[in-house]
């Protein structure tokens, strides 16, 4: 066999889903006997058949990628429940095998895939989509690029409302139908506690979590997923603040961003100046704005 042909044949077998008892399927991709399929290119030894040797790699692949997805989406797992999550994860990975050299990107298509394949999103599809989006944003914020932050002196020659401010590349601005930030923080806290707990305690915690997820009421929220001192945080935003930041991210000037947010807001206009000032001061202190490129080049 040519090298490419052999590697394609082996990869097809390695990436084929396991049975429900986590063994290699008896049928190869294409429907023929897997024993015959494996024996075409794998040598048996005195202890293991060709099938059994190939099975080691098949199982390792699925244990690895399923474990990676579970680590990246504990919130989605809590929403769906372990059994439904496992089935969903397998379906997701069959449809979306890793196309990156790093496992970090394995879940990059989770939300979009769940949107197109809603049967895998469980009983509360909106909640599942929300939590999947938040968990991916968390991953992106964790190791996203950071540029030098805006300093006060950078604004010395600024043209006031005509100024455009660039937001940090790692910053994510998202809206949700459910308070999934609270849910995810609760799930993480319980996972930490469960690591050290007995089985009985862990079971009780799991049942409590299922009840908590089932009771979660819809509540429209706006969130910034950002970093402080290299740790990721979730910060709730008022709708007006979200609108301003989203407009800035889309390249609008400060003046245009504030104006477009005011138009959609019920806030009395006399409250706007103080509100805008406080908002910009807070976001600048959090390092959300990038230093303008011209100024960076000079320094």
């Amino acid at each position, binding site marked *: 066999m040519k090298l490419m042909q052999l590697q394609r044949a082996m*990869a097809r077998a390695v990436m084929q889903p396991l049975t429900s008892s986590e063994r290699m399927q008896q049928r190869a991709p294409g429907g023929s006997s897997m024993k015959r399929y494996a024996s075409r290119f794998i040598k048996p030894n005195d202890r293991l058949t060709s099938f059994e040797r190939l099975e*080691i790699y098949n199982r*390792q692949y699925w244990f690895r990628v399923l474990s990676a997805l579970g680590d990246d989406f504990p919130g989605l797992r809590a929403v769906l429940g372990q059994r439904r999550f496992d089935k969903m994860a397998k379906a997701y990975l069959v449809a979306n095998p890793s196309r990156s050299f790093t496992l*970090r990107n394995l879940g990059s298509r989770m939300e979009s895939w769940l949107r197109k394949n809603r049967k895998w999103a469980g009983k509360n599809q909106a909640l599942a989509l929300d939590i999947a989006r938040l968990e991916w944003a968390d991953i992106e914020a*964790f*190791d996203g690029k*950071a540029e030098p932050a805006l300093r006060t002196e950078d604004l010395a020659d600024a043209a006031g409302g005509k100024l455009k401010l660039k937001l940090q590349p790692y910053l994510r601005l998202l809206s949700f139908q459910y308070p999934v930030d609270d849910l995810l923080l609760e799930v993480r806290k319980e996972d930490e506690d469960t690591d050290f707990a007995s089985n009985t305690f862990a079971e009780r915690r799991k049942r409590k979590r299922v009840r908590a997820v089932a009771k979660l009421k819809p509540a429209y929220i706006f969130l910034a997923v950002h970093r402080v001192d290299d740790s990721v945080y979730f910060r709730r935003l008022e709708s007006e603040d979200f609108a301003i930041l989203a407009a800035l991210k889309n390249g609008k000037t400060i003046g245009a961003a504030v104006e477009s947010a005011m138009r959609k807001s019920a806030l009395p206009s006399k409250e706007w100046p103080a509100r805008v000032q406080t908002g910009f001061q807070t976001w600048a202190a959090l390092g959300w704005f990038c230093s303008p490129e011209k100024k960076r080049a000079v320094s």
Partner: protein
Amino acid sequence: MAANRFNGFTDLGIGIGLRAPHYHHILTRKPVVDWFEIISENFMIDGGRPLAILDQILEQYKVVQHGVSMYFGSAEKLNREHLRRLKDLVKRTKTPWLSDHLCWGSVDGRYTHDLLPMPYTFEAAKITAQKVRTVQDFLEIPVAVENVSSYAEYHDSEMTEWEFLNEVVERADCGILLDVNNIYVSSQNHNFNAFDYVNSVPAHRVAQIHIAGHSKYRKYILDTHDHPVIDPVWKLYERAIQRAGHTATLLEWDDSIPSFQEVHEEALKANKFLHATVLAETA
């Protein structure tokens, strides 16, 4: 022989893998460690905590990069995005050499994230060596290829694994990261004499040596990196050092990771063999 052109003429001593559970200990207690090995892919990112930690480590320690997904042996082309990010990291760490595995793991753009064994054929050796050369030229630092542990062999193989390794490194003119635990694991799984392997590698190309633990199952051994090094592996290490000289040695412990102290103490057991080599050379 130990400090050679494949390890940038360095003799780094005994290192351990840089692992997240040990970050706090390393950054607060600043233990004396000859060097750390990092998994390149964990730091081929755009920003955030991992790079911040790495920069702090680089201020005080020597770091060598070890990759897990270059897939020199994959029949498909090299991933340009991977190479670009890898070169950025190489500039950041100033690693004296870079290692990755003599294996494949991707085909048609789909990644298994495993270290799949090569068929030991001349076609495979030619393709693999060409990719190693390309990577070396692009990164402008020496590359060392590591022998993997394996659980399957192919009908198509035309030579032994060590003959294949020799064929690749001669064609690529690259170094070897000799993993003696992997040799042991493969020797048990495939019924060959591990010393035949160690005795056959071109000693002048050995840039670095890996030692590690593994897990024994009823019909095979799995390379799990979650146990101390066993005696038969230490014996292989001893023979490798006798042949290659005082060589940079790295203990891999990647799962069920114990305290920093326990890992470091396990690694420092290599000193017994390194000192014996120095004494023998002096005599």
